[in-house]
């Protein structure tokens, strides 16, 4: 229906700093999405997690995976089915996840987020996703899903 560019989709992701964990969309098509994010040294959570030893929390990695794999990718897939004004009325909520954490992400690390579609039905999107460091090391992987709901 619409022909949105990667930049258009990025702009439609509603999350904003300090809770936005997507910088660029590198690849985007019907099968999947690839994006990147650089964890800034001054992200709010590093002060407490942990004092003197900043490590990106697993829940933030999960959120990072979801902002790309479920939110941005979901907006793209929805854009093929509905007009822009309807997409803007929809909020993507997290519905479920089964993930594994296998590495550490430090302040300043740039990560690559990849997600592949398992299914997209009735605005529910389920994907297989992973986050890798630039070295290729996988730090977080699993299955996550979210659903577009009309905002009240």
């Amino acid at each position, binding site marked *: 229906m619409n022909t949105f560019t990667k930049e258009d989709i990025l702009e439609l992701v509603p999350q904003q700093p300090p809770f936005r964990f997507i910088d660029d969309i590198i690849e985007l098509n019907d099968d999947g999405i690839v994006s990147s994010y650089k964890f800034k040294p001054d992200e709010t959570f590093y002060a407490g997690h942990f004092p003197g030893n900043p490590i990106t929390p697993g829940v933030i990695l999960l959120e990072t995976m979801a902002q790309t794999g479920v939110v941005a990718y979901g907006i793209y897939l929805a854009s093929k089915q509905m007009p822009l004004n309807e997409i803007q009325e929809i909020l993507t909520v997290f*519905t*479920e996840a089964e993930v594994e954490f296998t590495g550490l992400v430090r302040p300043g690390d740039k990560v690559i987020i990849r997600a592949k579609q398992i299914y997209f*039905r*009735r605005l*529910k999107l*389920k994907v297989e996703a992973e986050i890798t460091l630039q070295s290729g090391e996988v730090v977080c992987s699993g299955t996550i*899903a979210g*659903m577009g709901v009309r905002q009240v």
Partner: protein
Amino acid sequence: MTKDEVFKKIVDILGKYSKTEIKMENISMETSILDDLKINSARLVDIVLDFEDVFDIEVDDDDADSVATVGDGVNLIMAKI
């Protein structure tokens, strides 16, 4: 497949998603999937996808929206197999 067999298979599918322990003898055609079995609406999408796989049918979105009770599921599937 008989209505009873469909009913049993549906209960098996629902068991994967219910937050409360499903006791077969407590489930009837009137049991509400969302309210009685504590299954959230996002899981209904997975349940309908399981219906498609298990019974080898296709369920369009309007039909899927009509499924509220176990009986709705049984009747939907009986009409399609």
